[in-house]
């Protein structure tokens, strides 16, 4: 059987739809009541949050993507190509980024009842008691909205759940966490029939030292890690193209200066510069992204610089210049198409290096730390618990290595493609 991209995309969306049907329905209902609220002119009681937006876009994409794929099946050549391993992984990563809240219905920061949830091995099952929800006295529509919202958007602190090891039903209820027993009034607990409602949560990849679900963190970490990588690549691309054009266009002095500077920086132990800046000025997502980008513009610069000089010698360019195209036009119409491929190849490789650098920074305590789930930070946390919990380093490590492998493959196959077309 031949699996092409078309089939893969469709299957993935359908699978997600089937597995997370209830989440999809809940999201739809939530958005319905949201629209309803706004319609009724009570928008002041709505608070837009990123989570809400996330579900909303996810839902829309889930409808739009199959439509696009179906409509353009014959127009886009790629869709009919046989899928490669690289393509499949890239596709999965894209899916993870777009549909995080649908893939995992859990908050990446949820940590509660450490006595039960700390450092659980993969496939552990934990029982959950549900507390009765507080009812707020607001008007009907708003109440509906809030109820759906709390149902769908899981909070980070699990205000309505208790993780337990076991339970003794009686008056009052007694539940066990580790070795301690705790009593709780029955009327605080949500019941199903005469028994308390107990559900189980399976931690696919186990939990970390805070009792957080590693699977969920990896899913959300994909976003963070790839965002940092992409952002840094953008920053270095910007710097590289500006400097590259200046040096190729304006005379010898700039050319010499930037080239030597690039060479100096290229081989300078750049990690020190990064560490210095982050140590002295603080490390958050944007400073890491910016510093990593600013520290790796050199190879892109070299490529752009060399290509521009090559292009300047070419006939078509000289003709275009003679016709009197403006500099901007020259760039967009003549240079960009030629430069595009080598730049993309280099960006792909740079992207891999940056994700790797973020992991190294985490080891030195200058990464994203605990505030955001990034793979680098998770691997760093995992190496501290190597003796206690092998799963903490293994899963994010595998994810990182798999992604980097894919990115490298992508880069080299692009490279081959480009070289072939040049020849």
């Amino acid at each position, binding site marked *: 059987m031949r699996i092409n991209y078309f089939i893969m995309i469709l299957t993935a969306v359908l699978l997600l739809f089937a597995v997370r049907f209830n989440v999809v329905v809940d999201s739809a209902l939530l958005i319905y009541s949201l629209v309803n609220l706004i319609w009724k002119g009570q928008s002041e009681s709505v608070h837009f949050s990123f989570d809400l937006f996330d579900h909303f876009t996810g839902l829309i994409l889930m409808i739009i993507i199959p439509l696009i794929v179906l409509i353009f099946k014959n127009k886009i050549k790629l869709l009919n190509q046989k899928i490669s391993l690289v393509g499949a992984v890239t596709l999965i990563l894209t899916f993870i980024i777009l549909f995080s809240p649908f893939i995992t219905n859990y908050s990446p920061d949820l940590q509660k009842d450490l006595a039960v949830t700390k450092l659980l091995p993969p496939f552990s099952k934990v029982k959950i008691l549900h507390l009765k929800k507080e009812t707020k006295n607001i008007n009907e529509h708003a109440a509906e909205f809030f109820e759906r919202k709390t149902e769908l958007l899981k909070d980070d602190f699990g205000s309505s759940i208790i993780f337990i090891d076991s339970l003794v039903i009686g008056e009052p209820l007694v539940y066990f966490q580790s070795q301690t027993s705790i009593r709780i009034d029955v009327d605080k607990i949500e019941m199903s029939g005469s028994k308390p409602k107990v559900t189980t949560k399976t931690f696919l990849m186990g939990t970390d030292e805070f009792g957080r679900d590693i699977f969920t963190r990896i899913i959300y970490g994909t976003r963070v890690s790839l965002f940092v990588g992409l952002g840094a690549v953008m920053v270095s691309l910007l710097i590289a193209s500006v400097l590259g054009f200046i040096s190729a266009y304006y005379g010898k002095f700039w050319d*010499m*200066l930037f080239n*030597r*500077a690039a*060479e*100096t*920086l*290229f*081989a*300078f*132990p750049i*990690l*020190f510069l990064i*560490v*210095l*800046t982050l*140590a*002295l*000025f603080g490390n958050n997502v944007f400073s890491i992204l910016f510093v990593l980008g600013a520290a790796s513009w050199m190879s892109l610069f070299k490529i752009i610089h060399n290509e521009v000089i090559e292009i300047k010698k070419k006939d078509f360019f000289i003709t275009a210049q003679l016709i009197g195209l403006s500099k901007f036009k020259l760039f967009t119409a003549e240079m960009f198409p030629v430069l595009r491929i080598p730049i993309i190849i280099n960006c792909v490789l740079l992207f*891999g290096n940056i994700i*790797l650098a973020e*992991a*190294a920074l985490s*080891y*030195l305590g200058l990464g994203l730390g605990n505030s955001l789930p990034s793979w*680098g930070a998770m*691997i*760093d946390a995992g*190496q501290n618990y*190597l003796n206690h919990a092998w799963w903490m*380093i293994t899963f994010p*490590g595998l994810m*990182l*290595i798999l992604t*980097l*492998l894919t990115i*490298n*493959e992508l880069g080299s196959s692009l490279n081959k493609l480009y070289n072939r077309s040049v020849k």
Partner: protein
Amino acid sequence: MKRKLLYAIGKRLLISFAILFVFISFLFFLIRISPGDPSQKLISPKLSPALHESVKESFALNDPILEQFYNFTKNMLTGQFGYSYDYKMPVTKVILEFLPFTLILGSLSFVIQLALSFWLAYLSLKNRGKFLDRFLSKFSLVMYVTPIFVLGVFLVFIFSVKLDLLPTSGISSVDSYRYSFWQNLGDYILHLILPLITLSAAGTALFYRYLRDYFEDVRSKSFILNLRSMGVSENVIIWKHIIPNSISPLVSIAGIELGTLLGGALITEVLFSLPGMGRLTINAIFARDYPLIIGCSFIAGVLMIFSNLLADLSRSIINPRYSKEFLN
């Protein structure tokens, strides 16, 4: 020709050092405008504010920044880096304590990376398309993308903790100073095995991939096909034609790698408690030991300039086409 070469080298060094100076000056200002105060090393109720003031005074941190910069420039030009705040020794002396180790570790690792990657690429070339080749090309990719600290942690876990074959850290046993020369040598070798593997893995993989690609590239050139059709033996083709033609592009990459290695292998040094420039620099940064930060950066820069120069020189020796480029 010789004069021309010397002139080219001199000019290049001059420009490189000028840029290094600009770069270090940039560092100077970066450090000065950043938060943190080197005289406020520890917060303790016992330290009196009077001490704090007087220490700050003696570090000349109360002077206007331009005056500090003037002194800094003067000292840089005369080759004085001043006293390290933490080590309470001249910066040059501190660096001289740490530099030899880094030079040894860096060059050892460099040699290993080159030799091993060359050997593996050669194996790949000979067994082209067979299992070994495919395995090596996949495995090298995995090695290249594995974060260095993950590799190090696993190596220690396996070889030191589980198998108890190799020491976990340091460069020598605690009483190595009582050993004979040979015992000491053995001691050093034992201690350096894991750090060297950790430090060399990614570089080896990278060189291997480059070499393999170059081999592949040259191999598919028409003159090789001609040779082969003329019945020249495969060994001769590999040694006389493919390898010499593939080496020169590698040299410039190798030069960069050498520069980086000699600047200090930060993560490896931290992981294995090695007394190298990487750890020295990072500690200086965290302790805000301004003179030492400047000194370390300067040394790293100088090493980098020379290893780049070395790379370009050797490239032009291997391939005369580059010497023209170099001279210009």
